[in-house]
Each structure stands twice: as structure tokens, then as C-alpha cells.
């Protein structure tokens, strides 16, 4: 069964460093998302991406964040200058063009900022 994959599973970085989190969505999906989950808190929407552009973003997704689909398979989230409060699980999700309510999530990348 196709699934969303994410790398790395765990990333440790120092405050102020740039990180890139990578995702490979399900191959025929058209809509891509990033969510995050701070430990003990709810899953929060960051950004949605369709047709090579951002379609929606939350207030969390400020200028420090960017997303890219550099080729036909990868979808990346970049944090330019990490802060301690960026420590969280980051989940990528994808959705086909026909199943509007079926977002499939990857296993997540745990980001630890020290």
C-alpha cells in the first residue's frame, strides 16, 4: 500500500541553524501539507501546497519557513533560522485530487532544537 515517507526520522540542530525536512508524498497525489505537533499538544496546520504554490498557510508559517517541491517526488519544509520553540514533530501529508477528505500522513520528523 502506498504511503507517505519522511526523512530524517529525528533531526537535532542548534538554534539559529537551517534545517530541511523531506517528504515523499504518495505518487499520484496532488495536494501536499505540513503540520506540526509540539509534545503533548494538538496537531497544527502549517501550510498547504498545490500546483507548485502555497494555497494556504497558518500564522505559524512565517518568513522563517518555506516549502518547495524541487522535483516530481519530494516535498520539503525549510526552517531558515531555528528557534527553541520550533522543536516538535513535523508531519507531511498528501491528498489525491479526487478524495477531498483523505489526507494521509507520514510518520513524522522529530525536530529537536538545542
Amino acid at each position, binding site marked *: 500500500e502506498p504511503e507517505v515517507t519522511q526523512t530524517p526520522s529525528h533531526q537535532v540542530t542548534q538554534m539559529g541553524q537551517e534545517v530541511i525536512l523531506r517528504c515523499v508524498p504518495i505518487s499520484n497525489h496532488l495536494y501536499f*501539507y505540513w503540520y506540526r505537533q509540539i509534545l503533548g499538544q494538538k496537531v497544527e*496546520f502549517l501550510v*498547504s501546497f498545490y500546483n507548485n504554490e502555497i494555497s494556504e498557510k*497558518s500564522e505559524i508559517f512565517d518568513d522563517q519557513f518555506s516549502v518547495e517541491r524541487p522535483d516530481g517526488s519530494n516535498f520539503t519544509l525549510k526552517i531558515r533560522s531555528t528557534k527553541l520553540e520550533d522543536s516538535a514533530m513535523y508531519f507531511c501529508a498528501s491528498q489525491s485530487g479526487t478524495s*477531498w*477528505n*483523505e*489526507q494521509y*500522513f507520514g510518520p*513524522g520528523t522529530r525536530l529537536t532544537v538545542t
Partner: protein
Amino acid sequence: QKEVEQDPGPLSVPEGAIVSLNCTYSNSAFQYFMWYRQYSRKGPELLMYTYSSGNKEDGRFTAQVDKSSKYISLFIRDSQPSDSATYLCAMRDNFGNEKLTFGTGTRLTIIP
């Protein structure tokens, strides 16, 4: 008032019992309602979704939506130890926005 409220639990029930998980919400624009299961340190796994009010059944799982009360439920029949996980409700509106708004999740343990 939070947009989506969910009792975090923990909730422990004996194997074979019927489990009832619930969420309330405040945004009347929400039209689509999902239930996800999340095992420890894993990504959310979609269980089922419903549109507007009514019931939907899938095997041992039944999702129920009452839009007049802004209240949704997930029932698990014949609960199994493998059902032990955190259950997240999520919802979205009908205005073309795809973002999901999640509840905090209810941690469920099924006791053998």
C-alpha cells in the same frame, strides 16, 4: 473558546467493551469530520470521515455527527488491545480550505 475540544483522557476500558470518543466544536462552518488514530511517536492514520450530520459505519467503527449540537462521536465496538492508541478528531470547512483543525486527542487503553 477553543475551536475543537476533545477530552484528553486517559480512557481505559476492558477488552470487548464499546468505546465512545467525542469532540465538540465551535465553528459552524465545519462540514467535514475525520477521525484519526495515532500510535505513540507515529503519524496520524485516517480511520474514517463523514460529511455533515449523520452516521457512518466501517467495520467495528461508527462515526456520528450532530451538527445542531456541534458534537461528533466515534464508537468502537468489540474493542481490542490493538485499538489502544490516541484518537484524534479533525475537521474542515466547506470553503475550499483544505487545512484540518484537530482536537487534542484522547488516549485510549484497552485492557486485555
